[in-house]
């Protein structure tokens, strides 16, 4: 079974990110790392290929400057190869532009039985790319998977809901987004790290994919970032003095927040 996993390489959340005042977008000129939320999809894909007893995991990513550091992490975990789309014309792409490019890159990656994504990236948070890819590829879309089982030509998914999960089934190939935290991503092994440097990364531009530069990037974006502003400082917390009834006040507050 061949699984394609869409992975995003993002600025390291451990370093304070910065917005570019001119483009009003996140600066991505520094070192990029594998988005942690994608590591669950990579792990899930590796487990599914293992369970199927054959096949391989291919990564698909879009990043500036031919960045591969994050891809190498996923290759070191066990993915076999990657398609990386890097093109100056992609700067400013919105979610739909990104989806157009990823859909083409998925086609380039070869015949896929299953396409996995995260539910959303940890830097952009639009959370719409998986469904858009499915639409562009005319494939079924299942979101928020907490468990995936492949059974012949169909996939069974436990789809996470607020109260539990729904059992969902659809034919393959399909696009499934994986909820963060549902599997424990493996550590890249040292042998994997050593092997990763020789695994193929097919780096392509828009021309290679047959994508019109006018349909993506700033040119094709259907959205415009009008203004960026500093978030308000977090308000001071509420201090509850215990006069013997504090527990009731805390329970009421939690009830108001619908936590209890």
């Amino acid at each position: 079974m061949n699984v394609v996993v869409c992975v995003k390489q993002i600025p390291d959340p451990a370093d304070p990110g910065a917005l570019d005042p001119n483009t009003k977008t996140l600066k991505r000129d520094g070192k990029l790392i594998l988005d942690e939320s994608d590591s669950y999809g990579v792990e899930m894909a590796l487990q599914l290929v293992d369970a199927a007893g054959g096949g391989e995991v291919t990564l698909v990513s879009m990043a500036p400057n031919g960045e591969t550091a994050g891809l190498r992490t996923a290759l070191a975990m066990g993915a076999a190869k990657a398609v990386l789309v890097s093109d100056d014309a992609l700067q400013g792409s919105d979610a739909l532009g990104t989806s157009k490019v990823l859909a083409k890159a998925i086609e380039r990656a070869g015949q896929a039985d299953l396409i996995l994504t995260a539910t959303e990236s940890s830097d952009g948070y639009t959370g719409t790319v998986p469904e858009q890819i499915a639409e562009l590829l005319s494939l079924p879309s299942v979101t928020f998977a907490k468990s995936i089982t492949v059974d012949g030509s169909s996939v069974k998914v436990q789809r996470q809901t607020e109260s539990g999960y729904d059992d969902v089934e659809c034919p393959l190939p399909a696009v499934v987004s994986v909820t963060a935290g549902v599997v424990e991503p493996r550590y890249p092994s040292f042998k994997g790290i050593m092997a990763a440097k020789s695994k193929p990364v097919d780096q392509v531009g828009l021309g290679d994919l047959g994508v019109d530069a006018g349909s993506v990037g700033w040119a094709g974006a259907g959205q415009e970032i009008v203004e960026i502003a500093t978030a308000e400082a977090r308000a001071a917390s509420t201090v509850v003095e215990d006069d013997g009834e504090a527990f009731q006040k805390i329970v009421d507050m939690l009830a108001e927040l619908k936590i209890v």
Partner: protein
Amino acid sequence: MSHAPIPNGADPLDLLGTDTLLTDEERLLRDTVRKFVADKVLPDVGEWFDAGTFPKEMAKEFGALGVLGMHLEGYGCAGTSATAYGLACTELEFGDSGARSFVSVQGSLAMFPIWAFGSEEQKQEWLPGMAAGDLIGCFGLTEPDSGSDPSSMRTTARQDASGDWILNGAKMWITNGSIADVAVVWARTDPDGPDRGAVRGFVVPTNSSGFSAPAIHRKVSLRASVTSELVLEDVRLPASAVLPGVSGMRGPLSCLNEARFGISFGSVGAARACYEAALAYAGERVQFDKPIAGFQLTQRKLVDMMVKVQRGTLLALHLGRAKDEGTLTTPMISFGKMDNVRMALEVAREARSVLGANGITTEYPVIRHMNNLESVYTYEGTNEIHTLILGQAITGLQAFS
């Protein structure tokens, strides 16, 4: 008079930006071990230290990661650079010197001699299992009466008419001894035999009759590590148990060079852990209505620690690059082991003083590292012996005896 402003974004944990000296691959490997240590070592190491144990199950975790014998080629080993091995040692010892000691002993002292001097059969029999962490190794050189002068060892290996070797003697301060499946034991051969009394290495399965490895208790240092005595009473081994590729003290000393190289890196990790703990504590601890980090005496301590850790990092990296280029010499290794362990111990003591009374409990990592480093200061060539190796290197005069 105007001053250039302190640049925003200066990293208090890497002011010199030494991170830029690493390749992407080295960084990935370093970050992987860092995460492993954060997940699997740091949450429990205080308790291991308190209880005086090192869980044997960690061997398989280390094996799955690929850290055991990682810089060796083939036989299930990852085949990384020496620098990468060093970086892993730094991260492991950031957790605890016991964790790094386990990995040093397995990779540099037990696997390395089999890999470098063993027969093909010995390599096939032991190395894949040791790389996976299914088999644990130890290294027997030091004896109760033979420490800095290992060639004075009393353990003997005698070959009988059938060709079997018979080992007798005792080894002391052996990391992993009581949990080991295999011991690489160095013993002096018969002066009248074919080896003319040379020291030879033997691969000794620990289930051999006459072999025992009682644990050494009542340690106040390296408590999260198993330390043992090895007792050899007429341990009979087949002729094939000897390491064929080396004869004389060059064998064990080359292993020690491997391990000492790792310690040059490892000690930086312990120092960094102490510095980070002190920096964080000084920022939060308020006395006289301000964080103690705002007092001049404390800033002096923090800066001293930071400078030492950064300098130690550069030294270790330099040695790593030299080892990968094949230009690393024994005095250079002594420089690294001597100076970085001494540095780490100084940083630990300084950090302890910043933490005040809180510095003496295992709630914080500092005194655990400080106590551990007292062992690291002495093992793998004492600070004094490394000083004399360097003294000889710069004067041409040997002052050992």
